[in-house]
C-alpha cells in the first residue's frame, strides 16, 4: 500500500510481475472500484492524472444522496442509484461520512408542473421507490415557510439526503490504500499498449510505464478519450456545465428540505439544497459545452441562478455568497450510464456517469468487479477491508472544537485556526498526516473545511497556508 506523487511508479509490487488491475481515474467512481477490488487478494493500482483524488466532477456536484426516484426506469443508472444509495447510507454511518436525511420536495409552480407530480410519483414506483407523498400548497408552506409565493403543491420524497461529497471519495481511497491498493497521483496515462493473450497491458504514463492484466476506465469526462487509447469509439462525452452558488450559513434556517424543480417543457430548473456544512446551495445550470476544462462560472449563469433563486426562496439573496463553483457532468447523449466490459481487451469502461455518480458509486464498484470477474479476472477469496473512520465535516454531528474530553487530551483540538468553519489545529494536523494527504490548499479545504467559510481566508488564510507549507509544529 502506498501513495506516490512523483518518480517512476513502482511498475509492480512484485518484481517481474504486473498489477492485476489498474483503475484509471480517482474520482468517486474510480475510488469506489479500487476499494471494492481491495477486498480480494489482488495487486491493484489506482492511477490519477491530477494531484489529488476527487479532483474533477466529484468535487463539484450537488452533494445529494439520491433515492433514484426520478431515474429512467429499467436503466443501469436506475438500479445503481437505488442500490448505491442504500449502500452509501450504511457506509456513511459506518465510516463517519456526514449524511442528513432532510428529504426532498418537488415544488410545482404552475398547473403543468402540478399535473406532472402524479406521473413523477408513478415513475418513482417503477424505480422501486414507494414513499413519495403529495403535499397541498398549505402543507408545503407549513413545511417551508420561507418559500416564495405562488407554489401550488409539491411531491415529497422523504428519503432524499445530503452528503459530504469530499469525504466520500476520500473514505474510499483511504480504505483502498490501507487495504493494499497503490494510489499513483499526478500520473496521467498518455498511451495504452494493449497486451496479447498472455501479455499484460502497458500503460505509458508521464511518470513511467505500468503493466497490468486488467484495466478499468473510470476517467469521467475523459472516458471517451481513454476508450480511444484502446481503439474503442462507443460514445462521446459532452461536458454539461453546472454552476452553483453556495450561500452563507445564515441562509440555512430559510430552508428545511432539498427543493427540487419539476422537470417540464421549460427546462429542468434549479434546486436549492442545504449542505452538510450548514450552508445553502443554489443551482445547477445546465450548459452543453465542448471544452472539458471549462469549469469557470459566467456572469450570465450566475445572474440566471440568482433570478431563479429569488423566486424560490426570496430571503436567500439577502445573504452573502460564500462560494461559487462549476462542475461538468459527463453527458453522453444516452439516458443511462455507459458501462461496458470488453473481455477480449480485459478492459471495463465505466463511463457516462452523469450527476448521480456520488450516489451510485458503491454499487458501481460492485458492478465493475462483477464485470471484471466475468471478463476473466480471478478474484480469489474475499477478506475484510481495513477499517476507516473519517473526520467529521458535518455541521449536524459533533465537531472537535466543542469536545471537552478531546481538547483535554489534546489542546490542538481547542485551537481554532479557521474561525468561520471552526476548524482546529488538530484537524489540520491530522489531515496533513492522513493516509491520502492533501496536495494543495484546496485539498486541505476538502479534508477539513479550512478556508471554506464566509471570509474565504481574510482572517485565517495566511495561517492555514503556513500550516500547510511549513507543517504543524
Amino acid at each position, binding site marked *: 500500500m502506498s501513495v506516490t506523487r512523483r518518480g517512476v511508479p513502482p511498475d509492480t509490487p512484485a518484481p517481474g510481475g504486473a498489477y492485476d488491475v489498474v483503475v484509471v481515474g480517482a474520482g468517486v467512481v474510480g475510488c469506489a472500484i479500487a476499494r471494492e477490488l481491495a477486498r480480494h487478494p489482488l495487486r491493484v493500482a489506482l492511477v490519477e492524472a491530477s494531484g489529488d483524488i476527487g479532483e474533477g466532477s466529484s468535487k463539484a456536484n450537488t452533494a445529494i444522496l439520491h433515492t433514484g426516484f426520478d431515474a429512467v426506469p429499467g436503466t443501469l443508472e436506475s438500479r445503481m442509484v437505488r442500490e448505491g444509495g442504500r449502500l452509501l447510507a450504511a457506509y456513511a454511518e459506518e465510516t463517519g461520512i456526514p449524511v442528513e436525511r432532510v428529504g426532498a420536495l418537488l415544488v410545482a409552480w404552475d398547473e403543468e408542473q402540478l399535473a406532472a407530480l402524479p406521473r413523477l410519483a408513478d415513475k418513482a414506483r417503477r424505480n422501486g421507490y414507494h414513499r413519495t407523498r403529495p403535499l397541498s400548497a398549505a402543507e408545503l408552506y407549513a413545511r417551508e415557510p420561507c418559500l416564495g409565493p405562488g407554489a401550488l403543491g409539491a411531491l415529497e420524497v422523504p428519503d432524499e439526503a445530503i452528503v459530504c461529497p469530499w469525504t466520500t471519495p476520500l473514505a474510499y481511497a483511504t480504505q483502498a490504500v490501507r487495504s493494499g491498493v497503490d494510489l499513483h497521483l499526478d500520473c496521467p496515462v498518455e498511451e495504452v499498449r494493449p497486451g496479447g493473450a498472455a501479455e499484460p497491458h502497458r500503460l505509458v504514463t508521464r511518470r513511467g510505464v505500468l503493466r497490468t492484466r486488467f484495466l478499468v476506465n473510470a476517467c469521467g469526462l475523459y472516458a471517451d478519450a481513454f476508450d480511444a487509447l484502446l481503439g474503442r469509439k462507443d460514445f462521446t462525452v459532452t461536458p454539461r456545465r453546472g454552476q452553483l452558488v453556495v450561500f452563507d450559513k445564515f441562509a440555512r434556517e430559510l430552508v428545511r428540505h432539498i427543493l427540487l424543480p419539476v422537470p417540464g417543457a421549460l427546462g429542468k430548473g434549479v434546486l436549492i439544497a442545504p449542505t452538510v456544512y450548514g450552508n445553502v446551495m443554489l443551482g445547477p445550470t445546465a450548459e452543453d459545452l465542448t471544452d472539458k476544462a471549462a*469549469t469557470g462560472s459566467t*456572469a450570465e449563469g450566475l445572474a440566471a441562478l440568482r433570478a431563479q433563486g429569488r423566486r424560490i426562496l426570496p430571503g436567500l439573496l439577502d445573504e452573502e455568497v460564500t462560494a*461559487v463553483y462549476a462542475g461538468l457532468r459527463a453527458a453522453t447523449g444516452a439516458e443511462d450510464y455507459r458501462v461496458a466490459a470488453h473481455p477480449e481487451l480485459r478492459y471495463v469502461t465505466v463511463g457516462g456517469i452523469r450527476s448521480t455518480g456520488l450516489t451510485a458509486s458503491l454499487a458501481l464498484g460492485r458492478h465493475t468487479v462483477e464485470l471484471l470477474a466475468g471478463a476473466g479476472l480471478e478474484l480469489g477469496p474475499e477478506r475484510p477491508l481495513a477499517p476507516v473512520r473519517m473526520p467529521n465535516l458535518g455541521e449536524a454531528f459533533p465537531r472537535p472544537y466543542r469536545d471537552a474530553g478531546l*481538547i483535554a487530551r489534546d489542546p490542538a483540538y481547542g485551537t481554532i485556526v479557521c474561525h*468561520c468553519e471552526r476548524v482546529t489545529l488538530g484537524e489540520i494536523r491530522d489531515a496533513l498526516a492522513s493516509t491520502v494527504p492533501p496536495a494543495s490548499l484546496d485539498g486541505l479545504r476538502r479534508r477539513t473545511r479550512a478556508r471554506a467559510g464566509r471570509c474565504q481566508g481574510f482572517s485565517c*488564510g495566511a495561517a492555514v497556508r503556513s500550516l500547510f507549507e511549513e507543517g504543524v509544529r
Partner: protein
Amino acid sequence: MSDGPGVPGGADPSGGRLERAVDVLVVGGGPAGLAAAARLAVAGAGRVEVLERDRAAGGVPRHCGRGGFGGFTGPVFARRAVRAAVRAGAAVRTGAGATGWAGPLTVEVTAPTGPERITARAVVLATGARERPRSARLVPGTRPAGVLSTGELQQSVELFGLRGGRIGRRAVVVGSDPVARHAARTLRGAGVTVVATVADRPYGPRLGGGPVLRGATVVELVGRGRLSGVVVRGADGRTGLLRCDTLVFTGDWLPDHELARSGGVPLDPGTRGPSVDPGLRTSVPGVFAAGNLLRGVEPAVVAAAEGRTVADAVHAHLAGAPWPGPGVPLRAEGALRHLSPGRLPVGPAAGPAPTVLLRPAERLPAPLLTVRQGDRLLYECRVPALLEPHRSLRHPAHWAVDADPTGGAVTLRLAAEDGTVPV
C-alpha cells in the same frame, strides 16, 4: 496562551465544559475591544476579560505595517493598545474564540484549555469587519490559487514573512479606496510587481504602483491551478486580458456580525452591523457593540474612540442604570450609503447632541444634508466640504432635541450640489 492576568481554572478534568462568570466580557481584541477593556478596568468595573481568537491581540493593525495609526505604525498601535488594557487590569486572552451563545449573556468559548461558558453582566461585541471576498462579489471565471484579500496578503507578509514568489510575481489590485494603495504598497515591499490597480470608481484617492485603471472592473478570472490573468472591462467598455498570477480584492468591508446575529441582536438594515444607540447599546439588554463591527470600516482611532464610548455606557449599566428605550431609528437616503449609530434618543431626553457618522455613497462636492421626520423638516444644511465615499462625515445631531420621540423614523438624506442624487 494569555497576555494578561492568569485565567482562573482550566478544562474540567471530568471532560465537561467550564462555567465561569465575569463582570464584562469583551469579544474581540482589536482597537475597539482593547480600548473598551482598558477604560472599564481603570474605572473599576470588576473582572474585565477580552477574548481574542487569534494568537495575539491587537486586531487588524497588527498586520498593517504602514503608519497612520494615531502617529504610530499599525503593529506599534496594536502593542500599545494591548499593553494599556493589560496594565489597566483587564485579562486579555488570546487563542480563545467565542463560538456562540448559551444564554442571553452567556457566551460559548473554545480555547486550548477547553470549552467554556462565560456569563457576564455585560457583553461588548467588538468582532470587527472583513473584506468581501471574490466569491461574494460574484466575479466569474475559474477558481485558481493566487486570489486573496488585503487581510490575507498583509498577514502573509507581516506575520508570516512571505516574500516574492511565495506570494506571486505579477499582481493586480482591485479597489478604489486607500486600502487598495496599502495593498499595492505591501505587494511592492514584498517584491511583487503590481501590474495595475483596477478601480471601479472613476475618481478617488491616489492609488499607487503601476497604472490605475479608473472606472474599470474585473469581469473574469482566468487560469487553472494558478491564476494566469484577469479580464478587465475598461471605462470605455472595451475588455482586455491583464496577465498576472496574483489578484488582491481590497475594501468592500462587511461587519463580522456572526456572533451578534446568532445571539438574536437586531441588525441595522443599512450597515448590517448591530443596531445601536449613541451609547453603543444593542437592542438586547446587557449587550453592546463597538468598532468596525458596527459598519464596515473606519480608521482604528475611530474604533478605539468607540471603545471608550461604549465603556462609559457599560459602566452605567453595571451601576444599575436602566436600559434605555430604543429611541427613533435613523434611515439613510439619497447618496447617503449608511450611518451609525442607527438609533437616537430624541426630544427632551436627547441629551447633548450625539455624533452620527455619515458615509456617502459617491463623491459629493458640498452636498445638501436634509433631516426629516415624516413631513417635518428638522434640519437642512449645505455641507461645506468635498465628501468622498471612503470617508465618513461626523455630523453632530443638534436637531435630536427637536424630533418627536413618538414620531417614527428620522430620515437623513444627502444630495449633490444641484439637488440631484448621482447614480
